[in-house]
């Protein structure tokens, strides 16, 4: 049987690589490598050898120029040894090959700022949205209810409805360059996840249920193929029932909801890519 190979990026302030790698393993990936960006830039590790690219959360370069800006710039401009391409070019080729990309929090911010999401019309590399400071002006760690758009092409959320994950960010407010972009997102069902009331169904602009004031309450986006997906909340923070903030008072299955996204990804790779 062919092996599902996963690359989890690390370095320069990426912080969640271990739990993201663990999620991939627990979801059934055969090979999961945590790879420092320097190893890719040196040419020793090749992105093309993998099926699934994970861009974990963190504070790349301290978010000093705005969240994930400096990392996006690095990926655009830093040369890969022995190649004419930048890492951003290679990620675009990776997407063109139909492989999967998941960005969480800082990884999502980078995907948006590299123009990998939502990339409506396949315009990978052209930024049409951004993530900026929460309306409250502050970093916050709190759990949020998420409604899933069941008509979305997103392969990660296939069959899922209500989710509950923590957000941990200061710059999670999603804004579109114009209302037309926002409308297209909705028409094409690319705004996969929305901050919701505790029913997990009704999108809300009310703080703190919507922790950042995101337009249309959007918490996560995918591209039109459904294979590039990014979200501000942290599914890799809910892999086991003891991660849930109320596990000591609610009856919960051992398996956390976050695992479902990774299981969907691995299954898609097995069924459609290998």
């Amino acid at each position, binding site marked *: 049987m062919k092996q599902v190979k996963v690359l989890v990026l690390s*370095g320069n302030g990426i912080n969640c690589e271990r739990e993201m790698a663990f999620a991939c393993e627990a979801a059934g990936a055969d090979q999961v490598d945590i790879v420092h960006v320097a190893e890719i830039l040196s040419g020793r590790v090749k992105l093309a050898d993998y099926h699934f690219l994970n861009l974990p959360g963190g504070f790349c370069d301290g978010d000093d120029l705005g969240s994930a800006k400096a990392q996006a710039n690095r990926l655009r401009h830093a040369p890969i040894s022995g190649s004419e391409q930048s890492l951003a070019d290679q990620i675009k080729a990776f997407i063109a090959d139909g492989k999967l990309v998941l960005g969480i929090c800082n990884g999502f911010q980078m995907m948006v700022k590299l123009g990998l999401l939502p990339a409506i019309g396949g315009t990978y590399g052209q930024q049409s949205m951004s993530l900026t400071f929460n309306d409250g002006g502050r970093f916050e760690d709190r759990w949020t209810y998420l409604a899933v758009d069941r008509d979305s092409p997103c392969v990660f959320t296939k069959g899922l409805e209500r989710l509950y994950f923590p957000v941990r960010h200061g710059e999670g407010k999603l804004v579109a360059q114009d209302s037309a972009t926002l409308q297209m997102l909705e028409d094409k069902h690319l705004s996969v996840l929305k901050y919701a009331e505790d029913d997990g169904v009704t999108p809300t602009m009310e703080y703190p249920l919507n922790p950042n004031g995101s337009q249309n309450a959007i918490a996560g986006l995918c591209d039109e193929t459904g294979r590039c997906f990014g979200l501000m909340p942290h599914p890799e923070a809910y892999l086991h029932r*003891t991660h849930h903030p109320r596990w000591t008072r609610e009856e919960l299955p051992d398996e956390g909801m976050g695992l479902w996204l990774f299981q969907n990804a691995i299954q898609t790779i097995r069924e459609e890519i290998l």
Partner: protein
Amino acid sequence: MAVRIVVGLKPGMRDARGERVKRELKHHLGIELEKVQTLDVYTVDADLTEAQLEAAAAGPFSDPVIQDYRVGGALASDFDLLIEVGFRPGVTDNVGRTAREAIEYQIGRSFTLDEGVYTSVQYLFSGLDDLGQAEHIARDFLANGLIQRWTIVARKNFDPVKGLEATVPKVFSDIQPEVQEIDLEVSEDRLMEISREGMLALNLEEMQAIQAFIKDTATVEARKTVGLGDKLTDAELEVLAQTWSEHCKHKIFSAKIQYTDETTGDKEEIDSIFKTYIVGATKDIRKAMGDDDICLSVFKDNAGVIEFNDEWSIVFKVETHNSPSALDPYGGALTGIVGVNRDPFGTGMGARLMFNTDVFCFASPFYDKPLPPRLLHPRRIFEGVVEGVEHGGNKSGVPTVNGSIYFDERFAGKPLVYCGTAAIMPKKIADGRDCHEKQALVGDRIVMVGGRIGKDGIHGATFSSEELHEDSPVTAVQIGDPITQKRMFDFLTIARDRGWYNAITDNGAGGLSSSVGEMGEDTNGFEMHLDRCPLKYAGLHPWEILISEAQERMTVAVKPDCLEQFLALATEMGVEASDLGQFTDSGYYHCLYEGKTVAYLPMAFVHEGVPQMQIPAVWQPPQLSEPKLPAQSDYTDAVKELLGRLNICSKESVVRRYDHEVQAGSVVKPLTGVANDGPSDAAVFRPLLDSMEGVVVSHGMNPRLSDIDAYHMMANAFDEGMRNYVAVGGNVDHVAGLDNFCWCDPVLSEKTPDGPYKAAQLVRANKALYQYCVDFGVPLISGKDSMKNDYMIGDTKISIPPTVLFSVIGKIDDVQTACTMDAKRPGDKVYLLGNTYDELGGSEYYALKGELGANVPKVDSTSALLRYRTVNKAQSQSLIASCHDLSDGGLAVAIAETAFAGGFGIDADVSKIPSEGKLSCVQRLFSESASRLLITVKAENAPAFEALFAGQPCACIGQVVTEEKLTLIGEGGKQLVSASLDELKEAWQATLREM
């Protein structure tokens, strides 16, 4: 020529940062303005073309969706007055560093040492035209004059096309590095002048010891062989001042203390309270534990190490960063947290960070009296410290899982900022060596890794060894850089696993002079070339390079045959590493600069030459009495007032700003209950994602009890730490403690006439620490003391109350047996464990009434330990639904918290609580007797639970009910407290909600 790039939000985009400034201006200074907007300014001082500048502005510096930019022109419009805040020369500018790197990626070349990017923020105010008020806003809110500078421009003086002129805060220096000799053949007065003028913080005896050393003919002969004369160099004197500083050498804890107890007339001489009580306790406990000893490395390394399981060990350290935080709360606290991260990281062969803890002591943020000079308002300190820890922890990817904030007016003189970090390390590294051990070998290379050296942090160690005074140096203030550190940690972890080095340590207080000096003890000598150190800018003297406390640096003893690979990988991973020399067995502390010796001191003299201090200590207990307070018929208002007091109220506004979940280890989070907002007693953390074994961490602290007797302050801090630990499920037989003493100067002098009393408090606290650690079998594994927490300017002296933070760390075998404090379901029975006594002395209730009292809570080890062990048993059998410790505010506060966190009411009869003798209603409700826990139990588990506690003070006092209301009755069924959960919770949440 420098060019300014200004970046601002597009019209219509919400300026959350500006809104926050507007809001906080109102809170901090009471100034209400129409509008505040903000712009980011990058001053680029580099040889770039216009196109390159344009590309930088359009690329990494701005976001095309939300921002506009101008290169070399103005962007500001629609304002009355602007204030631009940037850094002073030489201050760490993290954003500037990232901006420089971003351009380097774009243009494909590195900047020269002369080139740089400097950042500032422009604040545009509408509704502000008074220049005086603008100055006030800049000085007292936006900026800190020690590290920042500002420009104020009224609209009418602003060029709307060109904007402000570019100014470059570059460090210009035409200083030629040199070495001075210092003549110590002088009078006593002059010796002390040399110490004071040089910020050496050495006393006369120590200066005389140095004087005698350099006079010795053997010394002079040895110096000739390396080309030095018969006078000490500045570098040598600085090395001794750093190594012998209170901060590094803990002279007070090592002193000979003559202790007199006036109540008994007993006198004794204590030869080092550290060795007698702290090391002594651990030694006795380890002996008693025998094969069950969990200690792996105690007191000898940067942090303590205990066993976790057969494959992993836990590393823990708590530090204080008080003095820098008083001057620059943000930078001080940020440096505190990234600094303490390096301690566990630099323990043994290196460890992976698990979590941070932090505890702060401040004056009230609502302090409204005039402040003595140089003190920042407590609200500013609060805000700055919290933000510093937030950035330090969150950006490093280390969750902040446990902490507290304690308020007392005396902390206006010096805030206490405790930062702790725990880490996990494999028992063995890949080549089979024990990970918790390390030893530099002769011939190993001295390699410095991480940040560059500047003048920052010079005299940090000696500065914190003195009280805060007018000449406290601004260079002691610095700003941490979590990203440089994170890169370094990523790199060093690989180097560790590849077995490339033999030892590693942190560069903290004293910089290279301490780190290399200490590692050199392994081989008995070293030779280090200071001119090989990478500098932030030119113009540093050799002594400055040697003692600079520039952050984010580790010193590593690299095996000579691995040096090449080590340096190559560092370069590839964007980490600076420099080979500075080698470890030797020469017996000498040997530093050179451009081939010439600048320091040559016998290792033995550096490390053991400091004379032992002699300190008098006299215990005369203060004359105190119990207040006479009229009895009331109803205590509902008192409960609500207590819930809203600063030491009890919700800290949610702070807790949410810390990422407490990164690394996916959090099991019991800081906030818990039905609405995720109740106060957890302690944290449970699962460090290995494929295992259910957990680490439990908690703490205890009771500064106010020092006003009665520091012995019981310590005893209660110890017990509170243990009781919090047990409440969540920590195993009392697999646990260790860590003490952090923060004292006011206890050494008798002209400035400190009450030194003997403060020294006696210190002795008593240590006696208690020894006693309770031994009684409970809790070994101490590491700790730190900060002994000069006084403020003295002019006639004003503020001394903090003697404060010990007792941190507890240990294990829970299965995290799925952990308990939280929230009531779980109606019908559950409510139990109180432990006797209540007439012990309101130092309580929150008395404080509410403006009283101190005399009856301090006393800890009974035997009954407490039995109780805690039995709680563990009940937890392992899953008999406990919720467990909450009783502390500030006593039973009434604990039961209210349990109810509103769970979202269910409680009916309880406080006349049923276990006690000895007759108690008043106030004592039943609010006494702060130690070692008590409030527990709820599912009705079907009640018989088994009661059977476990048979013979112990344990009583069922009520039950959990559906109605969202707390009802407490006393003797004869008389109602004492009745309130809805909403009003109780509101009282508890309102106080600090807006912080």
